[in-house]
């Protein structure tokens, strides 16, 4: 045992002083009385009990010596080195990922980690600053280098499991940054593993990993997808179930459609087996499907949050495409082959105003005064300049080449065999991005033959050559290019909300409004699986919704539009694999030991001695006043 303030032992000189005081006679007040006859008689009686009298005096001396000794020890601040903790400051990283909800250690892994952290916090000296970092979906510094043990305990108490992976890496980087400012820092990570660390992470401080959990028995639903059946009459659910334990288990899978039971399957899963299931004949107009695994009584399933999965059934709305053309068989055929396109053809001479549609394909010369309809536009060989581009001349025999490599719109498309007779010379507008350019000699080099861009709140595709003056329609590349361009032009409301997301990720909600009306000021209401409604103001026609901590079906509503749903599922093999493991690193994490050798934690014991001193003081008071207390008690009993 060592002492922080050994100078306090100087007070030990008081110990013999007390003994000396006892050895010295008491300074008594002299008082004359008529006679000491009775007093002498009484003292004789008291002396009959002399052993007790002496004992009482000695007991007081004994207690006072003990009290002073305990007080001196408390003031000397004794401490011992323990092997549990080393360093002068502590950073505690707590894994709050979904796998920490596993119940293989009671009540669950996170609570178990909390209890261990409580014990550590209580055992640390008061002057050891503690930093608490939670490593959930995002790493957060919950308490930064604080000495306030109550605040730390409260924060630990408030830690909750997050439905997602653990960002141990960021947490370690945060811890390392904090440790860089504090000497001799110990970083404790309370985790069940399952996270990966970068290979070349350098951590300031001494890293200790406390593994939480004991058992990895778990089964999970890792996929739930809904696809229209080939005939389009109904929907098929694709479900993948994985057994993460090493033994064969029996499970019951229950499928619910729109809240009503639809199908129940008893499945047998061998150890580490992945099982794929198809559930067919789900009504095409159903909104969402829920799949749940029920544990059997024979084997354990320690993590229940991955036994539940949801999927929403999206019915794709047809894309309205208006082809303004006096007749183009190739183009008409290519567009009509697209399954989600509802094609209409308009004769340019039929009326002065074009129909409003999602995409308008203009394959003809239009009057200069034409007002373009709302929606995206696809110009093919325009003759006149428009508000979006200017026509400056003619290109002779341009050689089409991709503007740059790796363009998405030219994926799987080869332009090597495409020949073009002539084209329109259109300088590339500022907003546009070239897709196909002319590779010809001289002045024709670099002129765009196909470019895309966004202008005036709409998307534009301009093809500067006519299909009739090219052999492109005869190439395999033609329908692919048309499909890619139409898909790029398609209004975003078709894909405005992803049908599935993972917990903790942000979901971009793009309002299903017309492009020319961005919907500023619209309020989007998101109903969470627990029924709580969250309203968010739309900005530039979109809302970024980030509170996806719950697993289940979220409903998005805006004024005047039908509700859209999206599902949030764990679907994380890393989290479902709850078997405790050490942190995975491609290479060992480099941690800087303190002074190159392990040091122990300093555990102070002064509280115990201070409490002992207080107890002895109270005891001394009772012993000293024992006679008075007995007298008062007897008087009270007599008065009754």
């Amino acid at each position, binding site marked *: 045992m060592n002492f922080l303030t050994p100078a306090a032992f100087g007070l030990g000189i008081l110990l013999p002083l007390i003994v000396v005081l006892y050895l010295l006679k*008491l300074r008594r007040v002299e008082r004359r009385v008529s006679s*000491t006859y009775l007093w002498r008689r009484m003292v004789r009686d008291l002396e009959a009990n002399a052993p007790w009298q002496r004992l009482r005096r000695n007991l007081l001396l004994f207690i006072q010596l003990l009290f002073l000794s305990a007080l001196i020890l408390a003031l000397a601040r004794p401490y011992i080195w323990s092997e549990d903790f080393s360093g002068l400051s502590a950073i505690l990283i707590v894994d709050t990922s979904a796998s920490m909800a596993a119940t293989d250690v009671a009540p669950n892994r996170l609570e178990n980690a909390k209890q261990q952290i409580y014990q550590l916090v209580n055992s640390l000296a008061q002057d050891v600053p503690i930093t608490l970092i939670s490593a959930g979906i995002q790493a957060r510094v919950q308490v930064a280098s604080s000495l306030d043990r109550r605040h730390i305990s409260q924060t630990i108490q408030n830690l909750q499991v997050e439905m997602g992976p653990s960002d141990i890496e960021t947490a370690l980087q945060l811890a390392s940054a904090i440790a860089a400012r504090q000497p001799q820092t110990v970083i404790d990570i309370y985790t069940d593993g399952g996270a990966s660390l970068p290979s070349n992470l350098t951590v300031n401080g001494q890293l200790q990993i406390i593994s939480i959990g004991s058992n990895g028995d778990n089964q999970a639903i890792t996929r739930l997808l809904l696809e229209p059946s080939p005939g389009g009459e109904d929907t098929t659910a694709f479900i993948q179930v994985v057994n993460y334990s090493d033994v064969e288990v029996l499970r019951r899978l229950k499928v619910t459609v729109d809240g009503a039971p639809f199908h129940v399957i008893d499945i047998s899963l061998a150890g580490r087996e992945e099982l794929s299931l198809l559930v067919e004949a789900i009504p095409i107009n159903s909104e969402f499907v829920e799949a749940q695994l029920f544990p059997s009584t024979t084997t354990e399933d320690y993590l229940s949050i991955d036994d539940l999965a949801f999927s929403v059934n999206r019915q794709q709305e047809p894309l309205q495409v208006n082809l303004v053309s006096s007749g183009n068989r190739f183009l008409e055929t290519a567009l009509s082959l697209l399954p989600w396109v509802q094609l209409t053809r308009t004769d340019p001479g039929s009326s002065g105003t074009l129909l409003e549609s999602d995409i308008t394909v203009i394959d003809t010369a239009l009057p200069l005064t034409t007002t373009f309809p709302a929606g995206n536009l696809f110009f093919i060989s325009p003759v006149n300049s428009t508000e979006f581009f200017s026509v400056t001349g003619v290109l002779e025999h341009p050689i089409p080449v991709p503007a740059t490599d790796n363009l998405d719109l030219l994926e799987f498309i080869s332009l090597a065999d495409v020949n073009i007779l002539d084209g329109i010379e259109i300088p590339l507008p500022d907003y546009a991005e070239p897709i196909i350019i002319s590779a010809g000699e001289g002045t024709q080099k670099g002129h765009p033959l196909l470019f895309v861009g966004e202008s005036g709140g709409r998307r534009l595709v301009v093809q500067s050559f006519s299909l009739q003056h090219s052999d492109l329609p005869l190439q395999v590349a033609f329908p692919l290019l048309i499909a890619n361009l139409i898909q790029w032009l398609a209004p975003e409301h078709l894909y405005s909300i992803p049908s599935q997301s993972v917990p903790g990720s942000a979901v971009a909600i793009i309002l299903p409004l017309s492009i020319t009306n961005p919907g500023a000021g619209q309020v989007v209401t998101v109903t969470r699986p627990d029924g709580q409604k969250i309203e968010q103001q739309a900005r530039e026609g979109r809302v970024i919704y980030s509170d996806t901590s719950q697993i289940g079906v979220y409903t998005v509503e805006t004024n005047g539009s039908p509700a859209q749903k999206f599902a949030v599922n764990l679907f994380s093999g890393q989290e479902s694999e709850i078997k405790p493991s050490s942190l995975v690193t491609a290479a060992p994490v480099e941690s800087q030991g303190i002074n190159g050798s392990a040091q122990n934690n300093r555990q102070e014991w002064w509280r115990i001695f201070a409490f002992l001193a207080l107890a002895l003081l109270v005891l001394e008071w009772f012993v000293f006043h024992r006679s008075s207390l007995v007298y008062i008690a007897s008087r009270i009993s007599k008065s009754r």
Partner: protein
Amino acid sequence: MENTIFDEKFLQNLERLAILTRRTLAGQTQGERRSPKRGQSVEFADYRPYASGDDFRRIDWNAYARLERFFIKLFIEEEDITVHLLLDSSRSMDWGEPNKLDYAIRLAAALGYISMVGLDRVTVTVLGHNSRRAEYYLPPLRGKQQVFQLFTFLQSIQPDGKNPAEHLLAYAIKAASPGPVILISDLMNEGWKNGISQLAMRGFEPTIIHLLSPDEFDPAHFTEPPLAGDFRLMDQETDQEVEITADFETLDAYHQQLTEWQGTLQKFCGQRGAHYLPAVTSTPLETLLFSGLRRQGILR
């Protein structure tokens, strides 16, 4: 002189009282108490055969007429008795508020006055000197006119006696004229029992008035300044010292000791036909005389 001790009204009240004796005691001169002797009173006691030299006038001629023998009529003698007042004059008596010795002198004066009014003889002995000198011993006085002498003697008593218990024993051995002995003392010495036993054995009728001051009776409440803390108590009579720690327990033990002591004395006196009356000087003298002593059967 008597006015400094009692007022007229108090004396008049005292004249209604008389000292009681449990049995008839022989006196020295004619008085008002029945004597075991046969004498000249009007109360018939017995007959005895005539003997030569008897007074003819005392022959019962009616008896002679019936029996033709001479019988002398005997009558009860009425004599005085001697009341022995013994006052402890040790220095421990000079204590308390009211002062024990002053209280004892007033009590003795009252009892002496009662006796003198009752035509009894009163003798006063100051215990603590074992001397027949005039300042320590008042020979028997009789008659109301001697009261002034009694009062003067009592008022001259000084608290300077030593070994009063031994003096009592000596007095008990030597004293003549058995009669009521009234001992007024705080009994704060050893050896009192021997004297009391001797008195009872010799035919005296002892009455012990055990006089204590209020602070002796209850030091926890009547001592000024309060008796709390560590003290060295000094006996003002013997200069003996006792060291005490005056806490509740000690004071409670003192009280128990006092109670036991008084109980022992009462039992001791009762076994020897003596009266024992504990008294505290805070009790008014009238209360003690007209209530306490009468209740004990010492006065009537």
